[in-house]
């Protein structure tokens, strides 16, 4: 069995308020992450993702609970624990804007206590990997936002830590740069060099890169499973009905009353109904409603769900 690299147990963070009620940002969560796992941390705004990540890298002091990194208690032996963790916390921040690309990489290696001579070839590799070769002598402030973000990730990687925490690494990037960064992260994940925990609003990034996903909502973990398992689970219960013409108001009302996760989209000539039916027999209930309104069913098919739909289903629909 692969050894755990990160163990979070009963982690709670409460922000005390002078006025009003205290805010529970993280509420008694726990998970174990094994070596070289690539895990996505998903959740709506204010779910507790960033607080969890900042607690892991000791920037926020938890109210209770424990965090062990490579077997070291991060609260008691912070400096030893920090030898194993690097983080990119706010996109294109976290780098020195007045240093060049190469100077930044050398500085962050030094900050970790690694001699620049020992990582010179790795720095070259990172510059190549993140397509920064042409700009390696350019000050970070003169780079595009996308390049700055890539540099921030490279600066975290140059520390050669076992655990890499990435908080919204693709936030604010254009499609092309987001894909470049995603490609580099995928390559790293494929090589199995690091344990990566990635929080993102971009579900396609998580689906593309991560093998496991932890979904948090209101400070609690609502789902912790392999991405493939979730897709399989939701595929088994996701259906798409194609109807000729439009639904009557009565049919729409009946469907919405009886099925929670329902999406109806109409065009001029046909209507599509997407529904999550956990009990396969409920397919007949949908058909009954359609038949009663004289709707002609063109097709019924299993739908291929994506992570975004699964996420919305779990967070809004309460499936766990």
């Amino acid at each position, binding site marked *: 069995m692969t050894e755990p690299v990160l163990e979070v147990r009963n982690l709670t963070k409460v922000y005390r308020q002078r006025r009003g009620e205290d805010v529970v940002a993280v509420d008694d969560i726990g998970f174990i992450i094994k070596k070289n796992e690539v895990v996505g941390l998903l959740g709506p705004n204010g779910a507790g993702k960033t607080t969890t990540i900042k607690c892991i890298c000791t920037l*926020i002091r938890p109210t209770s609970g424990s965090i062990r990194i490579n077997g070291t208690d991060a609260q008691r032996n912070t400096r030893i624990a920090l030898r194993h963790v690097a983080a990119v916390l706010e996109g294109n*921040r976290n*780098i020195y804007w007045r240093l060049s690309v190469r*100077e930044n990489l050398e500085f962050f290696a*030094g*900050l970790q206590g690694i001699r620049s001579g020992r990582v010179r070839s790795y720095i070259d590799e990172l510059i190549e990997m993140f397509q920064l070769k042409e700009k390696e002598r350019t000050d970070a402030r003169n780079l595009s936002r996308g390049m700055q973000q890539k540099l921030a990730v490279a600066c975290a990687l140059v520390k050669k830590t076992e655990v890499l925490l990435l908080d919204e690494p693709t936030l604010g990037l254009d499609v092309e740069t987001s894909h470049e960064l995603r490609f580099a992260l995928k390559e790293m994940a494929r090589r199995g060099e690091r344990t990566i925990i990635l929080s993102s609003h971009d579900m396609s990034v998580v689906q593309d890169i991560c093998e496991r996903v932890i979904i948090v909502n209101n400070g609690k973990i609502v789902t912790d499973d392999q991405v493939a398992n979730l897709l399989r689970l939701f595929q088994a219960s996701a259906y798409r009905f194609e109807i000729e013409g439009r639904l009557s108001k009565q049919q729409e009302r009946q469907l919405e009353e009886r099925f929670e996760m329902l999406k109806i989209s109409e065009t001029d000539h046909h209507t599509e109904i997407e529904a999550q039916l956990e009990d396969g027999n409920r397919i007949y209930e949908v058909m009954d409603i359609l038949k009663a309104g004289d709707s002609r069913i063109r097709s019924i098919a299993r739908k291929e769900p994506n992570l975004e739909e699964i996420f919305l289903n779990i967070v809004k629909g309460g499936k766990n």
Partner: protein
Amino acid sequence: MRYLILFKALLKQEFILMRRYLFNTIVSLIGIYIIFLLIFFGAHALGGGAPEFGATLDAIVVGFLVWTFALFAYSDLAHGMVREAQEGTLEQLYMSPVGFTWVSLFRIVSRFWVMLTFNIMLLVLMMATTGRWLHLDVVSLLPLIVLTLAGVHGMAFATGGLALVFKRVESFIGILQFAVVGLIAAPVGRFPLLRYLPLAEGNRLIRRVMAEGLSIFELPATDLLFLLANSVLWFGLGFLAFKLLVNVARDRGLLGHY
């Protein structure tokens, strides 16, 4: 070994920034020199004919030198911390496995030599302008300057800590910069209690070395011990306040938020 590597990385960073912003440094030097000229000619117009003006002039040069040292030490550290928090690099410094305490201390030491180069150039300009060539005993002056600045660094650390928790402290930093002038000009001879404040005693001893030509070994041991204790106390208090405020910032999730 990690400590040495970290120190070298910080030193190299300072060197790169100084080289890259040489024009900025020269403009600052000229600006401060102009302020000195205004003070010098102002003092000359007021009491230039008096027989004791020579001693006053020595005091002005030494006081101005200590002021620039203190101003750089204070504003560099306090503003530097605010800037790093704004730019998001403070979090990265905090996450160094060598420890944030060492990162902060090494940063002060690595910036000291930049400050020293700047102030030596300024001193030469001031002495050439006034025609008063003061006694420059490096062995005596260096430890006195380091001890004198330790108290200022304590103040800067405390201010930096306040900036992490309360965020908008720029005006407070500005006020304290003026307070530095008051500490240097404090009449320690007339009011001995003022010796307990940071900077005051150090400035008095530096003046004795530079203006009276004394060596550090000729200064009273009790004065030196007092300066040492005073510096350790103010630095320790400031640093302790900083560490407490960093923990408050960690509790409230404010570290790096600006």
